[in-house]
């Protein structure tokens, strides 16, 4: 994992999460800003997938279990599309909040991913 990129991912996911929760609570339905914020999170997650595939070839091996890392990462990649699908199907303020919940969940999951890669022992 690339430390700087991990920090950026967590920051973007947290920002998107807070943004969507706040906008949802004040009554905004899902719109370009909120939906695209989740798209941005997904794009960064997919970049993280690429980084994770390349990393072992550059000598960066996880201290934790690689299988566990991938189960987490793949699960995380499924969440933004699910949240976006929810928001598109149900265009209400609450689905904007759901977008935020999804993004915040990603932030926490990426933090866990970093733990598995850099802290936890296999």
């Amino acid at each position, binding site marked *: 994992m690339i430390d700087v990129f991990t920090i950026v991912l967590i920051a973007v996911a947290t920002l998107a999460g807070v943004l969507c929760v706040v906008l949802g609570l004040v009554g905004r339905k899902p719109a370009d800003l909120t939906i695209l914020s989740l798209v941005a999170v997904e794009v960064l997650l997919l970049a993280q997938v690429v980084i994770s595939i390349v990393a072992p070839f550059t000598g960066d091996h996880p201290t934790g279990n690689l299988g566990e890392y991938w189960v987490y990462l793949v699960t995380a990649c499924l969440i933004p599309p699910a949240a976006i699908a929810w928001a598109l199907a149900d265009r209400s303020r609450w689905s904007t909040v759901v977008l935020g*919940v999804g993004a915040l969940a990603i932030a926490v999951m990426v933090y866990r991913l970093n*733990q598995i890669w850099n802290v936890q022992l296999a």
Partner: protein
Amino acid sequence: MSTRRPSAPLRGPARILVAVYAVLAIAATGRSGFQIVDRFAEAPVAFSLSAVAAVVYILATLALAFRWDAVAWVTIGFELLGVLVIGALSIAAPDVLGLGDVDVLDRAFGREGTVWALFGAGYLCVPLALPIIGLVYLARGRRSRVA
């Protein structure tokens, strides 16, 4: 039993509850599933309890989404009981869970980490707050129907 019109869509806040439960269910299932497949022998009691918790979370999510009131009460109540009991054991009597030789923080955050250890600390205590919110939501729903 339930007199809410089944055709009416779930109210807004209820959808958030379902969404958060869904994420927790996915996270708990993935983690406990992997732990069991990969290293069950390291903490069999803790991992088994974690798997039970994951299944109950899935049931709770479905029960809230499809308004199976009785199932929702039972599953959410079970979870609250679980997080309180296992949370307390993980701090006061970790040997019961087979976590006696695991560092305190590792019981929630480490490779033996499970969803209810340290009162759900490994998941920002969402496993503790969520069933409380869930029970309040169910209780309010029942009260408004009786009135």
